[in-house]
């Protein structure tokens, strides 16, 4: 018998209050009361006594009551209400709370659930007030995502009549027998194209979802199997599609382009690193670049630091919460899967989103009051999520993933542009720490050996996340598979991570490890099989979440929280015992061989047998051609504004410049006790562009981290955009104290329409800038990732087709290693009387700037980066820091000098007197002086007594004293001609800086 156990909060419930407030903000002003009941539906028979113990174990007697409801037992009506809205999960969707509840019940009653029995959670929101059924339906839509959740609405009358809400078990029922089918490839090119685009044909004429294989690739596969004299099985074709996907093989970034035979990646990214390492010689700090799941550099004599930044864009568009939580726990596995396993020590996030409409409009996707409604389908039945929903969801996902995993999140950003409406960009990064040697063995080297067992650990396999890799290799449209959505389970992963990194690794129980990410087992196993020279897998041994999966689904599913390991046979017992004791599932699913083949058996029958060489390197090279895009020159048509104070206040409230402390402070940035400089700095708690951590408790050495992106520049000048990203990312960490000689970079290219020659030209330009500036600065790339099809194809509310492509976006992440964390500098002004200096020159470079964006201009002059000049400046500045001369510093970036200055003053909660007259460079307008985004600039304050020695340290660089910090809480700026142009109260500046997201 199935029992619903409802847990009711006795007194005050903060969740209910927040929900009511939020709905109120959405326009439902007539809600007089709202309360929440958490429901556990236990699908197993228990005695009443046992049910009591279960309910007691799942609730807290101090604050909660519980009630039961079964088929025969009606739910008690506690209070009158207008509507009850229940949200539960759809079958097969990860239900973390239910897993815990089941474990509690089993542990408390010393019993086991059978495969047919389970626990399901749901939540009922009771609403009282003058609301209509239609209102209730809208509210329900705002509370759930139909892709992964079910909803049920009942009026009070219906509730009484039915005796409560319904008893629903979200059990997965797959009645069909798992099967393997052959795919006939002796077909026309048109048919080949169809299979490549929409997937293998099912017997019911539906297709299985995108393989993302174009005709060129399909033909190569056709040829290969013709040679073998047979057709491929579905699992073979699916497996090849995963391995060859853009997501995994990066054919665009890696393929020959114009006359560059080696492709952009080899020619511009990898070559930059090779040349830098060679030039650095003995001072080379790179250890493992590009080849592993993360890149690694030297930290000290005993440790390496790893870093990796991933994107999780497509899943986040469909299910923002699930997309971003799997983004963060996924990139954590790139750390755990580095070398023999690194420990994640810091997370990083970045969200590129469309501006959310006002709260009322953002109620839900497709709300008539939202001015921008887009649909995936022509019938306008499948709306995309509103930007606010996406924003809330991705923020919550990183919150859950990062906080629950016990990994601090000291740095991140949000960036808004209308062109992210169809597809948001969600960046997730993780820095890791690993001893250089483990029991004398170099930790960054791993190799599975023939005879090693293939072992899968962590979570089980379900239908979630099927076609993730191929799906992210195409644009989003109505055919985008819902099965691509996964929800992370941070605790299952944490248990696995602890058991592997903190115990199994240090006993050297395995030879190799990699994470099950894109492509699932098909990619992880075949990747590791390259090390040994082959593999044979018994697919029926893979533990499943529920029965009924076809073998191809098991093989490519991206169900989360799994790692694949190569374990020598004589270590298996030790490893298996350890995992059992840590509550981690570990299963032998096959053996690594030296056969040169990737072989998969299912219940004794061979269902896949492909040459490893063909699988990994059989994909044809595609020659790419670019076409230069002429840049639209646009002259500025707006005169210098009179009211500069008003402009500065508006700038401080711009979504791209303003405080997002509501995100920073809900992410734990102090766990692991490694915080040095956090995301919010100074009295004014200003969002900083760079953070510092101290990875080892007993060492004073630190890691400085930052990032930069300038998508608003890319359509004007993609080369300079790349240059600016590199200079900004490098300068940000230097401003905070990094040593210019020990900075490494990561590149994340998020492009669009990557088959268009013009887009490829932009890509080439940006990649070239990456090479030029990385080499100039001596900052090697150690890892990177690209995502080439960030396009949305859908329909507007008139049913007209619409296409939205993200602006070409390059994210450069930077990390630097420093010897002494006390030699770091925060951004906030420290003491009245301190002198303010600007380092670097200001020119009229406002093309694509935030200021121009505010006054609806584009402009044509993007900042130029003079690497040689900057390098000299940075070296002098680093010297000044070592002499303890810098009291505060901020890298001048988006928003220019005025915004950097305001942040410094808000951070210190002081005042400033500024004279633009002395500004080095060439500007003729006050607004240009204040908001130009010229690169290579840092704004610092120093103690007056250090003036001489500071100026001496900076000799030969363009620097200028432009004012001083004052006690009076006012920002006063005198213009280029000496006249006062801004006299702004600190309080007003602080309010402007904080108000935009005050209600978030």
């Amino acid at each position, binding site marked *: 018998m199935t029992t619903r156990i409802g847990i009711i909060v006795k007194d005050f419930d903060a969740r209910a*209050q927040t929900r009511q407030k939020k709905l109120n903000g959405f326009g439902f002003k007539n809600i007089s009361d709202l309360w929440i009941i958490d429901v556990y539906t236990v699908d197993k028979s228990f005695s009443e006594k046992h049910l009591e113990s279960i309910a007691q174990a799942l609730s807290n007697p101090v604050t909660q009551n519980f009630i039961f409801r079964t088929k025969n037992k009606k739910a008690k009506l506690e209070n009158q209400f207008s509507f009850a809205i229940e949200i539960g999960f759809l079958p097969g969707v990860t239900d973390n*709370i239910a897993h815990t509840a089941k*474990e509690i019940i089993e542990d408390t009653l010393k019993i086991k659930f059978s495969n047919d029995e389970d626990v399901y959670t749901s939540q009922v929101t009771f609403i009282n007030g003058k609301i209509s059924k239609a209102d209730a339906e809208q509210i329900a839509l705002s509370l759930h995502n139909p892709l992964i959740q079910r909803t049920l609405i009942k009026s009070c009358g219906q509730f009484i009549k039915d005796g409560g809400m319904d008893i629903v078990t979200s059990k997965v029922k797959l009645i069909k027998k798992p099967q393997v089918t052959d795919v006939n490839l002796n077909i026309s090119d048109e048919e080949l194209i169809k299979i490549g685009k929409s997937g293998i044909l099912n017997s019911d004429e539906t297709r299985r979802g995108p393989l993302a294989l174009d005709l060129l690739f399909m033909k190569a596969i056709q040829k290969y199997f013709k040679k073998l004299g047979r057709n491929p099985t579905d699992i073979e074709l699916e497996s090849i599609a995963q391995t060859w996907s853009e997501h995994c093989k990066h054919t665009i970034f890696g393929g020959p382009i114009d006359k560059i035979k080696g492709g952009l990646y080899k020619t511009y990214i990898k070559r930059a690193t090779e040349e830098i390492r060679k030039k650095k010689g003995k001072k080379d700090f790179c250890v493992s670049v590009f080849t592993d799941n993360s890149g690694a550099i030297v930290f000290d004599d005993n440790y390496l630091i790893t870093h990796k930044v991933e994107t999780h864009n497509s899943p986040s568009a469909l299910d923002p919460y699930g997309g971003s939580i799997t983004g963060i726990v996924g990139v954590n596995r790139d750390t755990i899967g580095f070398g023999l396993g690194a420990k994640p020590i810091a997370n990083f996030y970045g969200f590129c989103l469309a501006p959310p409409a006002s709260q009322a409009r953002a109620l839900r996707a497709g709300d008539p009051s939202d001015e921008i409604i887009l649909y995936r389908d022509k019938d306008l039945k499948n709306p995309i999520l509103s930007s606010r929903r996406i924003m809330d969801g991705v923020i919550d996902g990183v919150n859950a993933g990062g906080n629950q995993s016990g990994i601090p999140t000291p740095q991140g950003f949000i960036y808004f542009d209308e062109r992210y409406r169809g597809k948001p960009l969600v960046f997730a990064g993780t820095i890791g720490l690993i001893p250089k040697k483990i029991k004398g063995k170099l930790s960054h080297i791993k190799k599975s050996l023939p005879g090693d067992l293939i072992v899968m650990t962590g979570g089980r396999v379900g239908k979630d996340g099927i076609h993730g890799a191929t799906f992210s290799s195409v644009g989003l449209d109505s055919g985008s598979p819902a099965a691509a959505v996964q929800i992370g389970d941070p*605790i299952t992963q*944490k248990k696995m991570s602890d058991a592997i990194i903190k115990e199994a690794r240090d006993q050297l129980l395995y030879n190799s490890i990699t994470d099950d990410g894109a492509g699932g087992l098909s990619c992880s196993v075949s990747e590791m099989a390259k090390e040994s020279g082959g593999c044979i897998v018994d697919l029926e041994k893979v533990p499943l979440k529920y029965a009924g999966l076809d073998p191809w689904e098991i093989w490519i599913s991206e169900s989360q929280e799994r790692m694949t390991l190569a374990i020598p046979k004589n270590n298996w017992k030790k490893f298996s015992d350890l995992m059992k*004791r*840590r509550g981690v599932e570990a299963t032998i699913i096959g053996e690594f061989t030296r056969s040169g083949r990737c072989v998969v058996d299912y219940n004794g029958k061979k269902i896949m047998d492909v040459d490893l060489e063909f699988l990994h390197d059989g994909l044809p090279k595609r020659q790419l051609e670019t076409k230069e895009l002429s840049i639209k020159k646009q002259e500025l048509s707006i005169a210098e504004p009179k009211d500069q104070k008003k402009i500065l206040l508006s700038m401080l409230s711009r979504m791209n410049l303003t405080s997002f402390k509501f995100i920073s402070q809900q992410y734990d940035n102090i766990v*692991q*006790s490694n915080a040095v400089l956090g995301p919010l700095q100074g009295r004014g708690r200003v969002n900083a562009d760079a953070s510092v951590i101290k990875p080892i408790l007993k060492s004073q050495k630190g890691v400085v981290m930052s990032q930069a992106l300038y998508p608003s520049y890319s359509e004007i000048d993609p080369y300079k955009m790349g240059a600016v990203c590199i200079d900004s990312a490098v300068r940000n960490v230097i401003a905070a104290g990094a040593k210019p000689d020990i900075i490494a970079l990561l590149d994340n290219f998020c492009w669009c329409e990557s088959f268009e020659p013009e887009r490829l030209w932009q890509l080439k330009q940006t990649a070239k800038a990456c090479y030029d500036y990385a080499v100039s600065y001596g900052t090697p790339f150690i890892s990177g990732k690209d995502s080439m099809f960030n396009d949305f194809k859908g329909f507007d509310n008139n049913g007209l087709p619409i296409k939205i492509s993200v602006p070409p976006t390059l994210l450069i992440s930077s990390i630097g290693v420093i010897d002494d964390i006390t030699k770091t500098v925060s951004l906030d002004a420290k003491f009245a009387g301190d002198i303010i200096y600007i380092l670097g020159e200001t020119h009229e470079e406002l093309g694509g700037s935030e200021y121009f964006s505010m006054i609806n201009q584009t402009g044509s002059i993007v900042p130029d980066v003079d690497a040689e000049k900057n390098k000299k400046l940075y070296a002098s500045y680093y010297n000044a820091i070592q002499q303890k001369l810098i009291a505060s510093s901020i890298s001048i970036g988006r928003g220019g000098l005025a915004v950097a200055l305001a942040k410094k003053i808000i951070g210190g909660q002081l005042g400033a007197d500024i004279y633009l007259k002395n500004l080095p460079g060439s500007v003729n307008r006050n607004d240009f002086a204040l908001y130009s985004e010229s690169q290579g600039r840092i704004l610092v304050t120093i103690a007056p007594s250090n003036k001489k020695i500071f100026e001496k340290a900076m000799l030969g660089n363009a620097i200028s004293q432009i004012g001083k910090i004052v006690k009076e809480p006012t920002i006063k700026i005198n213009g280029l001609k000496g006249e006062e142009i801004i006299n702004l109260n600190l309080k007003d500046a602080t309010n402007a800086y904080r108000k935009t997201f005050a209600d978030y």
Partner: protein
Amino acid sequence: MRIINIMNKPKVLVFSGYGLNSEEETAYGFELAGASSDIVHINDIVDGREKLDKYQILSFPGGFAYGDDTGAGNAYANKVRNHLWVQIQKFLEKDKLIIGICNGCQIVTNLGLIPALSQNYGERQVAQVYNQSARFITRWVDLRVVSDTPWLLGIDTLSLPIAHGEGKFFVDKKDLKELHKNRQIALQYTLGEMSIYLDLPANPNGSIDDIAGITDSTGKILGLMPHPERGMFFNQIPNWQLLKEKYNREGQKLPVDGPGLQIFKNAVKYFK
């Protein structure tokens, strides 16, 4: 009778497993203070590989045990209750110390080790519920010491960081009165240096009577939401950059320790 270690180094067991995550820095805090600490997975105690009676101090560290599912600390407390209750009871009979920090505080509360009014160890009497904002919050707070627990001996006020989603203390009126009367409220949020520096309200989460930590009636079991182990270095204090600049200008040496270390030192001192 107080157990005196031969080495004069009290032994600390720091629990781990199932999503607890602050065990390493907590163990390090005790070590810095002069104790010897072991991180032990709960299953190794359940299996009998480790025994609690070997130790003078038990520490339930911060974390996200079981992802806070079914209420923060609840599932881990269930596991301890189901398997280790007898060992815990024996531990309580001796003159020993227990601390629960953040998630650990939620665990010892759910386990009924604090406040254990009327000596009812094992009964849940107090709860930590969702913050008033219903959101996870990370910040520094100021604390006033209001009890005589050995853990906080000699401290009047101190500042520490918090990082939690469910840290709002709740207790009914009758028990609240008892807590006050018995001086079992160990720490209260107060408007001090850090709240003023950061311009934030003293009480971060809506806790009843500004409670940040409580003890059992002996004072030997302390549960607190703030994290001493995340405030044990000078460079973790929110205004350390300002202080650094001040000390540099005055020609003073920079301090190394943060305020949280004293709590670990107090525990070590108790056994000396």
